[in-house]
């Protein structure tokens, strides 16, 4: 089955995966994990723009600048639903694993490709199909349930568009499972000679733990979503109190997936950060094993804490206390990682190129997000904060401040490898300043609003919340501008960037030992690994 091209000693400088086959068709049918990664990049970026459009709409509405409200209550709910569903299921969850993971995982392992290249391409198209099914609900029959599809509202009251959105999410979940499966087998079976499990880069440990969560948690989401569909079309009654069903069971099922899913979002980000911190500190990572195993530990604990989303749903006090305590345990492996990153920078030769700025932004914002998570995990406080803007601020600090920051950092870091060109460092830095400032201006006031009692998901609010909401809206435009600058920098880099060397950052992991961009099969000769991944000093 192998494609017919021979290993010759010459001519490799201009033969790479980007020009290995040309034309749109060669991309659409490619089995090359690097190209598939870039295809996810284009797709996720497009979806991010759509999700961002809804976000700006929501914020603009809530600023109440004009006398008339911008959106009707009904439209507002739909904006909120599409914003959440797109950002969660189509941007943050696939973002790092399917895009950056696909690109770097096999190269970092010294493999020629993922274990199942055809399955990899199939996952991509399954993802596209899911996104299209979900998006069709925007056209035919809009949904206003919020991304959590809580029953009985989603099953008994709202439009049939829910069926499409849920089916789309189901399909994308299938894609996520297949990608995770592919990564696990690749990590087990395709490591280069000498690449033992304790020599794999930390990015791979993170992707590996993420894949485990994808395999174990996504099926539960799948069945939950199928049940919503069945409920809506057949009225089976499993979540419908009128038929004897229990809406709280839906919440258990939903959060049994969706809490671990927040680690599908954040673990890969932590992997990216581990790579960035050591590359830009020029120092061996501090506590390799601690960081590696803490990823697995986080994955394990994430399955035991779903009940913290339901402290006020009428679950028993004992359950509340148990979930509260276990939730706090998540803090331990997370803190281990933070301390190790900081120790790595300590006495390192730290430089502040754009990717490193994003890494530092990640650490700062994620810490705030994580700490406020501990507030929410205390049952007493959660009664006060539940369903307020405090929760909104919390999860944006972890999901946007954490995952998206890491994604941006990862893009700027691996860009030279992807395209063989450099991005403008200045462009990256301006983008960072705008996103970082804008982010805090947008979301910090929301902690205050939440503490003052402003409920989430409401179309309107009391006058005393006006000022902070307006500040928040201004911030959202700064973020938007920041991403726009980022996008321009990336496009400019692709078109006009200076030629990149094979290892512009002086990093040590395997992907930097091959040419930029890499050849179709990643390496001209299979590398043999003789030391750990971060052999600086």
């Amino acid at each position: 089955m192998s494609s017919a091209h021979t290993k010759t000693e010459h001519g490799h400088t201009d033969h790479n995966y980007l020009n290995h086959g040309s034309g749109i068709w060669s991309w659409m049918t490619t089995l090359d994990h690097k190209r598939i990664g870039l295809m996810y990049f284009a797709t996720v970026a497009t979806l991010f723009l759509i999700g961002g459009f809804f976000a700006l709409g929501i914020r603009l509405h809530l600023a109440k600048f004009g006398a008339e409200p911008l959106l009707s209550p009904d439209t507002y709910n739909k904006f909120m639903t599409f914003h959440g569903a797109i950002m969660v299921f189509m941007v943050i969850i696939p973002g790092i694993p399917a895009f950056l993971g696909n690109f770097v995982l096999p190269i970092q392992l010294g493999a020629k490709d993922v274990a199942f290249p055809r399955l990899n391409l199939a996952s991509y198209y399954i993802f596209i199909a899911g996104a299209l099914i979900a998006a069709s609900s925007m056209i035919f029959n809009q949904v206003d349930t919020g991304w959590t599809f809580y029953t009985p509202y989603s099953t008994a009251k709202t439009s049939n568009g829910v069926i499409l959105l849920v089916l789309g999410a189901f399909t994308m979940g299938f894609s996520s499972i297949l990608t995770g499966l592919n990564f696990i087998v690749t990590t087990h079976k395709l490591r280069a000679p000498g690449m033992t499990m304790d020599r794999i880069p930390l990015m791979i440990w993170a992707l590996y733990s993420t894949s485990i969560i994808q395999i174990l948690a996504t099926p539960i989401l799948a069945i939950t979503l199928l049940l919503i569909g069945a409920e809506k079309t057949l009225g089976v009654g499993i979540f419908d109190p009128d038929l004897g069903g229990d809406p709280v069971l839906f919440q258990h099922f939903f959060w049994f997936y969706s809490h671990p899913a927040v680690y599908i979002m954040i673990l890969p980000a932590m992997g990216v950060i581990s790579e960035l911190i050591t590359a830009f500190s020029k120092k061996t990572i501090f506590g390799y094993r601690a960081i590696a195993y803490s990823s697995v530990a986080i994955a394990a604990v994430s399955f035991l804490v779903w009940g913290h989303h339901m402290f006020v749903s009428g679950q028993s006090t004992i359950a509340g206390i148990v979930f509260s305590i276990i939730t706090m345990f998540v803090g331990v492996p997370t803190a281990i990682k933070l301390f190790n990153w900081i120790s790595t920078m300590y006495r390192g030769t730290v430089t502040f190129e754009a990717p490193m700025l994003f890494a530092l932004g990640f650490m700062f914002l994620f810490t705030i997000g994580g700490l406020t998570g501990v507030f929410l995990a205390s049952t007493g406080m959660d009664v006060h904060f539940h369903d307020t803007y405090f929760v909104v601020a919390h999860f944006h600090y972890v999901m946007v401040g954490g995952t998206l920051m890491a994604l941006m950092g990862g893009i700027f870091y691996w860009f030279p490898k992807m395209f063989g060109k450099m991005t403008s460092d200045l462009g990256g830095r301006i983008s960072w300043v705008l996103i970082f400032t804008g982010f805090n201006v947008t979301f910090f006031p929301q902690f205050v609003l939440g503490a003052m009692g402003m409920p989430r998901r409401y179309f309107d609010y009391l006058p005393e919340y006006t000022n902070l909401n307006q500040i928040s809206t201004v911030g959202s435009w700064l973020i938007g501008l920041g991403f726009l600058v980022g996008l321009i920098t990336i496009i400019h880099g692709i078109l006009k960037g200076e030629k990149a060397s094979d290892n512009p950052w002086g990093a040590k992991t395997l992907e930097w030992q091959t040419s930029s961009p890499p050849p179709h099969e990643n390496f001209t000769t299979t590398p043999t690994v003789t030391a750990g991944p971060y052999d600086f000093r």
Partner: protein
Amino acid sequence: MTSVSSSSEFHHQHHFKSADHQYASSKQGIWLFLCTEILMFGGLFVGYLIYHSMYPTVFKNGSETLDWKMGAVNTVVLLVSSFTMAAAINYVQRGLHKIAAIMLALTIACAAAFMVIKYFEYSHKFHVGTVPGKFSLVDPSCGAGGKRAECESKIAALLKNPAELEKNHVSAEEVTRLKAVISQPKWEMFYGFYFVMTGLHGIHVVAGALLIFWIFIKTLRRKVGPEYYTPVEGVGLFWHVVDLVWIYLFPLLYLVG
């Protein structure tokens, strides 16, 4: 570059070291996928157990209206199919393509028989009205807004009409059982589970049959054989999981009463 060790020429992709290496990787992938299948059904089983403990009588009465004989026949059919599938794998491994193809064809026949029996079971339920939520009412729009208790169910309507009972082959014994079912509030719960669980399983049976058909063609064309039988084994494992799920579904749904 195809590496040329004589036994690995068959379908050994360039990024694997050898055919064995590829085989071990594929097998791991298949097992991981099967884990997700089992977990997905696991979610349904958890739901079933929860509601069974909440409404024991509803589940008992409901299960008594199922035809355990048909369920039992189907169990046997699937067990036989698991056997023929296993035999097919064995014959492919030994290079006996003809008998392997016959075994695969028998497996597909069993899958078809299973679905036909299911069809008869389902259609009888549609006639008597032991169907999930919405469709169990004479007027499906009646139940909206929490007014279900005031609506007439199809079963109740049927029981009032002796001519219809006869036409649909409802025995006196079944009449007693149906009466017992609607004597309980929330009786629709059981059929919700019954249809979702057997429906999802049925979809898997059809998908499995299609996969086996794909393998069947491969076997006829000799694309698989002693050197390369990963897809046959993979589909076989999938089929055994489909069988296994039914082995749990049958007692839970048909015999709990």
